[in-house]
């Protein structure tokens, strides 16, 4: 799928975030501009500490950007806090509540929205097979593998039905094999549900394999360095990773990221 025309679901313009006081100011994010179209899958890569998570928190409404930037959500200008409850957000760790069964973890957001428990459970129960969790609704989180816990967290995120989903390294803690399975599965689910996704990752291959566009951030202060469209047809088979186009994009991204990693490495050493 190419970049869709029409209005973006979210548009960040001139977004900065500074931490600390006058003595020790750290600019985490510096004048970032980013558009995500409706139904688009955008992946975000960058060296560690480049402000990816800060940018995420701003897009989720959890942190206020410095004054001066502009956030437009579904065409309307919004203050940071207005986005709370409008964006479905999945943090790095699954954050499942240990005292709740799988099904009751899945309906957490629905419960917050005030849906009746029985209705919410029915709705979540119908999604379990699609997420590979059929028969596990009455299990507790500690009885599940890492991949399954991550899928419960994903159902929880999916059931909070918002047009924009923010996924912060959702597969970062999984082993390589489980990770590949989860990527293919996520694309599958995304193609059926058609939400817009902003997906943070450390893994360049993952970024290309999943994304309509790959956005590279610079080392601190975080800026947008590169915005590369991925013109690979979908559905993408596993061997797409050996195609000439894939390798061309990968080379471009690796060069950009190495440059940034060196910069942050030198800065840390100085």
């Amino acid at each position, binding site marked *: 799928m190419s970049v869709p025309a029409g209005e973006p679901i979210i548009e960040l313009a001139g977004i900065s975030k500074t931490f600390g006081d006058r003595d020790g100011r750290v600019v985490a994010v510096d004048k970032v501009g980013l558009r995500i179209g409706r139904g688009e899958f955008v992946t975000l890569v960058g060296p560690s500490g480049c402000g990816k998570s800060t940018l995420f928190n701003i897009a989720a409404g959890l942190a206020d950007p410095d004054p001066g930037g502009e956030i437009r959500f579904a065409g309307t200008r919004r203050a940071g806090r207005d986005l*709370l409850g409008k964006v479905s957000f999945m*943090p790095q760790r699954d954050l499942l509540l240990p005292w709740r069964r799988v099904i009751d973890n899945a309906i957490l957001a629905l*419960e*917050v929205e005030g849906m009746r428990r029985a209705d919410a459970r029915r709705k979540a129960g119908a999604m379990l097979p699609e997420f590979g969790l059929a028969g596990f609704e009455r299990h507790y989180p500690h009885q599940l593998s890492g991949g399954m816990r991550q899928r419960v967290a994903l159902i929880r995120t999916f059931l909070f039905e918002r047009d924009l989903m923010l996924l912060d390294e959702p597969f970062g803690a999984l082993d390589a094999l489980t990770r590949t399975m989860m990527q293919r599965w996520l694309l599958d689910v995304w193609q059926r549900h058609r939400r817009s996704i902003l997906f943070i990752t450390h893994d360049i291959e993952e970024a290309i394999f999943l994304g309509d566009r790959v956005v590279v951030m610079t080392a601190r202060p975080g800026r947008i360095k590169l915005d590369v469209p991925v013109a690979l047809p979908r559905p993408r088979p596993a061997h797409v990773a050996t195609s000439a186009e894939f390798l061309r994009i990968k080379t471009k991204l690796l060069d950009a990221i190495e440059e940034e990693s060196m910069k942050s490495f030198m800065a840390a050493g100085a």
Partner: protein
Amino acid sequence: MSAAQRLVYPVLGLLVIAAVWEGAIVVFGIPTFVLPSLPAIAKAIAADLPALLAGLRVTLYEAAVGYVLGGAVAIALALAFVLAPLLERAAMPIIVAVNSVPVVAYAPVALVALGMGSASKIAMVALAAGFAVFVNAMNGLKAIDPAAVNLMRSFGAGALRTVWILRLPAALPAIVSGLRVAIVRSIIIAIVAEMLGAYAGLGQMIYLATQQVDFLRVWAAIVVASVASMTLYGLFAWVDRRLVWWK
């Protein structure tokens, strides 16, 4: 472990203590008014049973009412402080000041203000039990993963809903352990308060028997009090395992 297996070690421990107790009386020639023999204490308990049970009933009543009252106020206060941090900042110095003095020091004030009856004992138990619960509840409610709180916020949850869905269940282990500590403390404070001035109760019996140099009766009351205390503690430990099974 089966119930029988769980009982083996405590029973063994009790037998060892009984043997050392009786042995010490014989070996060191301890006079019976300092350390009466166990059969003599058992006989005294049997002979005095109706009076001891009547005393126990009063003590347990005071301990139980004070415990429930203190525990409820403590949990409510901890929740209020978490929801309104400004309130916490204003009230915390007072709470710390009250808690820095042993509860028993307030006994004369309680006796003068509330009289020699049960009310003064209940007030002191509530204070003592309340603190144990309050400190634990506060710790539990605050020691929550900020990322989990952010997740709730991202779902659009307000402070009240976050407390109900996330903070309260997450703090439950800490609250329950506070409630467990407070059980034994409640009975101790009820007995001590009764010894300082009361019409009835195990503490009052201990005080009167001491005055009359009736040490068998003192020991009989002590044994009844510890058995009651241990039973309640065991009961609560059992409830705890069912309430907070995920830890």
